[in-house]
C-alpha cells in the first residue's frame, strides 16, 4: 500500500515538475505543441482524403514516413551502445546516462509507432494485429515480428526506467538483481529491433537494393552512430543547465565508440557500393539513381552526397582524439552524423529501393507538404515526450525530487552522479 501511495505521490510530483519551468522551457514546450497541433490538422486531412495527400503512389509505395520510422528504430536501438560499456565492462562514468538512453529509446519507439500509424491506409483496423482478436501473421510476416519486438522493447525500457527512477525517488538503491538482468536483456533486444526492421526490407527479393545480406549489419552500425549523437548533446545540455555532473571521460568514451561504429558503417557502405558497381548488373540501377540519377531524375542525388559528406567529416572529427574532445568540433560532429544517418536511413534506403519500380518505371518521389508537416508533428511528440521525461528524471537522479517532497541530499544519490549499482 505504501508503494501505491508513493507511486501516486510520484505521479503527482512529476506533474508538478513538468508544469514548472523557466521561459526557455515554456517557449520550447509551446513551440512543440504548436507543431503537434499543425501535424494533427494535416493528419485529419490525410485521414479524410486518404494517402493521396502524400506523394506516395503505387511505384513508390513506402517513402518518407517509413524512412523516418526506420531511422528512429535505429535511434531507439542505440541506447545499447551506452549499456554495453556501462554494465558489461562496468565502466562507471557512463552509468548515469543509461537512464537517459533508455528514455530516448522510449520516445523514439513512440515516434516509430506514430510513423507506422500515419503510413497505413486503415489505421482504425489496428485491432486486426492483436493476436486473439485479430490475427498476427507470425512467423511469416516480418512486419508482424516487428510489431512484437518493438512493443516488447518499449515495455522493457519502460519497466527498467520506471523501476530505477521510482527506486531512487523512494531513496532506495535499485536492486541489482532486479534490474541488471533486464538491462542486460535490453542489449539483445536492441539488436533485435533493428535486425527485424532490417529484415523487413531485406526479405524482399523483389527489391534487389534491399535484398543484400549486409543490410542488417549496416542498420546496426548506423544506429550506433546516430543514437548516441543525440545523447552526447543532451549530456552537455544537462551539465550546463542543471547540477548534473557528467564526467568528460564519459562523453569522450561515447564519442570514441561512435568513431568505431562510423568506421564500420562506412566500411559496410563501401562494400555495398563495390559489389554493385564492380558487378555492374541491372541491379546497379538503384545505386545509380541514388548517387548520379537516371536521366533527368536526380532529385535525391544532392541529398545522398550530402549524407556521405556529413558522415565522412563526422567520422574524421570523431576519430581524432583532439577534435572529439573539443566541444565545438564534438557537437559539430554530432549534428553531422545525425544528419548523415538521417538522410541515409530516412530517404536513402527506402526511395532508391523502390526506384525504379519492379517493372522499371521511374516515379520521382519527394515528400508532400502533408508528409513533411505530419512528420514534424510526430518528431515534436517525441521531443516533447523526451523533454518531459528528462525533466522528471533529472531531479530524481540529482536527489532533488524525493518521496515526501523534500530534496534528500543525504540519500544514496550524490549530486553529480547517481549510484545505480555498486
Amino acid at each position, binding site marked *: 500500500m505504501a508503494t501505491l501511495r508513493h507511486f501516486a505521490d510520484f505521479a503527482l510530483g512529476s506533474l508538478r515538475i513538468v508544469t514548472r519551468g523557466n521561459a526557455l522551457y515554456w517557449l520550447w514546450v509551446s513551440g512543440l505543441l504548436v507543431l503537434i497541433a499543425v501535424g494533427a490538422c494535416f493528419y485529419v486531412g490525410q485521414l479524410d482524403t486518404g494517402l493521396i495527400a502524400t506523394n506516395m503512389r503505387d511505384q513508390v*509505395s513506402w517513402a518518407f514516413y517509413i524512412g523516418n520510422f526506420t531511422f528512429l528504430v535505429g535511434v531507439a536501438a542505440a541506447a545499447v551502445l551506452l549499456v554495453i560499456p556501462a554494465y558489461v565492462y562496468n565502466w562507471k562514468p557512463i552509468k548515469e546516462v543509461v537512464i537517459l538512453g533508455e528514455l530516448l529509446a522510449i520516445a523514439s519507439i513512440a515516434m516509430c509507432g506514430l510513423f507506422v500509424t500515419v503510413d497505413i*491506409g486503415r*489505421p482504425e483496423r*489496428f485491432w*486486426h494485429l492483436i493476436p486473439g482478436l485479430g490475427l*498476427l501473421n507470425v512467423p*511469416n510476416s516480418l512486419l*508482424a515480428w516487428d510489431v512484437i519486438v518493438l512493443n516488447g522493447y518499449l515495455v522493457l525500457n519502460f519497466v527498467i526506467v520506471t523501476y530505477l527512477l521510482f527506486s531512487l525517488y523512494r531513496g532506495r538503491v535499485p536492486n541489482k538483481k532486479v534490474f541488471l538482468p533486464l538491462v542486460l536483456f535490453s542489449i539483445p533486444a536492441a539488436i533485435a529491433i533493428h535486425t527485424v526492421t532490417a529484415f523487413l526490407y531485406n526479405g524482399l527479393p523483389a527489391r534487389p537494393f534491399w535484398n543484400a545480406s549486409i543490410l542488417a549489419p549496416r542498420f546496426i552500425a548506423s544506429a550506433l552512430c546516430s543514437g548516441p549523437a543525440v545523447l552526447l548533446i543532451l549530456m552537455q545540455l544537462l551539465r550546463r543547465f542543471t547540477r548534473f555532473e557528467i564526467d568528460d571521460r564519459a562523453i569522450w568514451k561515447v564519442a570514441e565508440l561512435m568513431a568505431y561504429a562510423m568506421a564500420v558503417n562506412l566500411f559496410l557502405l563501401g562494400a555495398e557500393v563495390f559489389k554493385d558497381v564492380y558487378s555492374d548488373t541491372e541491379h546497379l540501377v538503384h545505386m545509380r539513381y541514388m548517387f548520379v540519377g537516371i536521366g533527368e531524375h536526380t532529385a535525391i542525388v544532392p541529398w545522398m552526397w550530402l549524407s556521405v559528406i556529413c558522415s565522412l567529416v563526422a567520422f574524421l572529427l570523431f576519430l581524432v582524439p583532439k577534435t572529439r574532445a573539443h566541444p565545438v568540433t564534438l557537437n559539430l560532429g554530432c549534428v553531422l552524423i545525425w544528419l548523415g544517418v538521417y538522410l541515409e536511413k530516412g530517404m536513402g534506403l527506402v526511395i532508391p529501393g523502390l526506384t525504379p519500380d519492379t517493372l522499371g*518505371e521511374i516515379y520521382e518521389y519527394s515528400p508532400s507538404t502533408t508528409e513533411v508537416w505530419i512528420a514534424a508533428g510526430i518528431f515534436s511528440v517525441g521531443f516533447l515526450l523526451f523533454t518531459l521525461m528528462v525533466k522528471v528524471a533529472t531531479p530524481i537522479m540529482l536527489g532533488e525530487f524525493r518521496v515526501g517532497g523534500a530534496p534528500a541530499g543525504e540519500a544514496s544519490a550524490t549530486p553529480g552522479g547517481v549510484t545505480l549499482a555498486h
Partner: protein
Amino acid sequence: MTQTLPNRREFLCSLAGCAAAATAAGCSDLTHTSWFRSRFREMSDDEKKQIVAGLEQEHTAKFGKPVEVGVEPPMQGVEFGYALDISRCIGCRKCVYACVEENNQSRDPQVHWIRVLEMDKDKGVDFAHANAYYEADKVPSEGHFYLPVQCQQCQNPPCVKSCPVGATWQEKDGIVVIDYDWCIGCRCCMSACPYGARHFNYAEPQIPAEQLNPKTHYLGNRPRMKGVVEKCTFCIQRVRNGRYPACVEVCPVGARKFGNLLDPDSEVRYVLEHKRVFVLKSELNTRPRFFYFYGL
C-alpha cells in the same frame, strides 16, 4: 475449449463507444459495421450470407441498381492457369480497360490492374528499358513488342507471406485473393510483389454508377474502399462460374489463353505442351501460374 469464447463482434461492439469518440477525429466510417467484420476465411456460411446481404443492400443503395456480391468457393479439381502469346500482343490496351470495367477499378484516381509494357525488340524482355506510357493509338510501333503484366498468381507468393494480418491468401484454385475488409493498408505486399501487380487505393475509389459492374465477388470486384490494396483475381467472379476472364474475352488478337491446369484437354495445357513458355523473373522462385510464350 468448452468455454464459449466471447464473440469477437460482440466484444468489439462493446468498444463502439470509443470508436464513436474517434469518429470526431475525421474518420467518418469508423463506426460503420465493416469495422467489426471478422476475416472472410473464418466466417461461417450463415455469417457470410448475412454480411453479403448487408453489402448488397449498401451497394444497391449507393449505385442505384441491384448489386450482387457472390462468395462462390473454388471448384473441385480446378487450378487456373494463364498463357499469354507475346508474339501476338499488339499493345492496344483493350485488356487494361476491359479489366477496369469488369472489376470496378477506381476511375479517379485511375487504378489499372494490367500494365502493358512496350519493349525494344533488340533488348528482349528487359524491364529496365520498358515503357508503360506509350501511345496506344500508334501500336504496334516499329521495333517494339508488348508485354502485358498483371498478377501472376504465384504458387509461392511473396505478397501472402509478407502480410502482417493474413488479409491475403491463396485459394485452392490458385487465385491469390485479398479480404478488403481485413487489409490494414500497410502495403508490405506491394513492396514484396516483383511484378507491380498490387495497387493501393490512395483515395476513395470513384466509379460512375452507370459504369459499375453489378455482378461481383466478395474477394474480387466488389466496390472497394480507400486505404486498401487490390489486384487481379483472374476475374474470380467470372471464372468460378465457368466464364473467361474479361481480358481473355476482349483481346482482339487472341493472345490470351486461360484454363484449368489440372485438365489435360484445356487450352492452357495445350500451350504448355506445344509451345515453349517462360515465366517472369523465374530466378525469384515465385513460380507463377501466368506463362508467356511465342506462338508465332
